[in-house]
């Protein structure tokens, strides 16, 4: 969706301000927000694409004025409520008011955290059809504006690029983000000249690579 998360090329935010000796967390609540997000993800009630879509479908004004762990927390609360795991009244009261229900996977045990983090969540998948494009092919990204989840940024739609690498088969976020199946697709690193993306005044030394699933591309 064309939400506030799709920031590439926007202007007016001012300089990037690195923080000297930045701590890993700014306040104890950020630690809990991170841990809650990962522990709730482990329940198997949604996947990473659904989780990203929950964050990016926040109101743009809310998204842009929230810190990153606030965005995570707001996305998490949306998911928990939509799956009837937690109610708004319970969060307001700060206590459970209804019995828990069975989840797709059991809660993450402390003893299993290390193995779960080391395992991660690989999303490469075998595809039983050949890749449509090869290294060196010229392609054009499709001009799509889906109302649902997509990983094709606005600044790279309808643009001509070149296939630089064929990365393999991966879960397709545009369907997986709506619980409509993993639907694995070939992924390619596609390189665009800066002037193709930003016009003739662009930095002539710039090229941008994005990773595109095959349905985002058409042959020139």
């Amino acid at each position, binding site marked *: 969706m064309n939400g506030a*998360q799709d*920031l*590439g090329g926007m202007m007016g935010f001012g300089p*990037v*301000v*690195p*923080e*000297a000796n*930045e701590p*890993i967390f*700014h*306040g104890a*609540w950020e630690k*809990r927000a*991170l*841990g*809650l997000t990962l*522990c709730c993800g482990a329940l198997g009630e949604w996947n990473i694409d659904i989780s*990203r879509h929950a*964050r*990016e479908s926040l109101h743009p004004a809310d998204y842009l004025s929230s*810190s*990153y762990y606030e965005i995570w*927390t707001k996305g*998490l*609360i949306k998911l928990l409520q939509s799956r009837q*795991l*937690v109610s708004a009244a*319970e*969060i*307001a009261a*700060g*206590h*459970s008011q209804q019995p*828990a229900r069975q989840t797709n996977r059991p*809660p993450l*045990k*402390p003893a299993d*955290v290390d193995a*779960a*983090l*080391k*395992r*991660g*969540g*690989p*999303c*490469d998948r075998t595809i039983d059809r050949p890749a449509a494009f090869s290294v060196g092919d010229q392609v054009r990204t499709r001009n799509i504006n889906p109302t649902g989840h997509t990983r094709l*940024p606005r600044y790279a739609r309808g643009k001509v690029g070149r296939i630089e690498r064929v*990365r393999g088969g*991966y879960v397709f976020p545009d369907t997986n983000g709506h619980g409509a199946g993993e639907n694995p697709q070939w992924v390619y*690193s596609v390189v665009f000249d800066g002037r193709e993306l930003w016009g003739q005044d662009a*930095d002539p*030394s*710039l*090229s*941008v*690579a994005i*990773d595109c*699933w095959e349905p985002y591309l058409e042959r020139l």
Partner: protein
Amino acid sequence: MQQKSPPHSAADAHDHAHDHDHDYEAGALSPIALRVRALETVLTEKGYVDPASIDAIVETYETRVGPRNGARVVAKAWNDPAYLQRLRENATAAIAELGFTGRQGEHMVVVENTPGQHNLVVCTLCSCYPWSVLGLPPVWYKSAPFRAKAVIDPRGVLADFGVTLPPEAKIRVWDSTAELRYLVLPSRPAGTVGWSEEKLADLVTRDSMIGTGLALMPESVSPEALSKGASA
């Protein structure tokens, strides 16, 4: 290539309005801190979350998984041509040789800086970042200014970090739109022939592995770090 101190002091950074919801503001918990606390209580009472699991996750990223991991990968690549080749062919497997695997590092790609090309990594759509080698991303990496500017004005971003590239150098920006996670292999600084991997790793900053910085020059490393490397 030059690298100066960033033009913003720590005090400027602190005044900047980003992510500074410290838990206690005027003696009370901030609204978001209260909300997170309420959420944790509800989820714990329902049995969906074990607070000790949260502690274990936090401890992992506070003490074990951070940019020191990536620095070891880079230093080994600088010193070991066979390892560099394995990184080029299958970065995920080569990085796993050093024990670095897992969440947000499942599908790794290493991109090499050369005298003619500088690489910069961003995620314009969210905050994709190679956790297994760099730990959790800094606030600026997740923030709107960086995500907006990196793909259209990377030299402007580098200037914000006090880095100037020669005008003829090409810049390749990698927007992490899929599940591939990118680690920049910075150029090895001159004057480091014969250095041990441990000593080389002290030159590899987090920002140099994102592309917003360069590896440190040997003379900029503190005497303590040098003596530590020498004693290894």
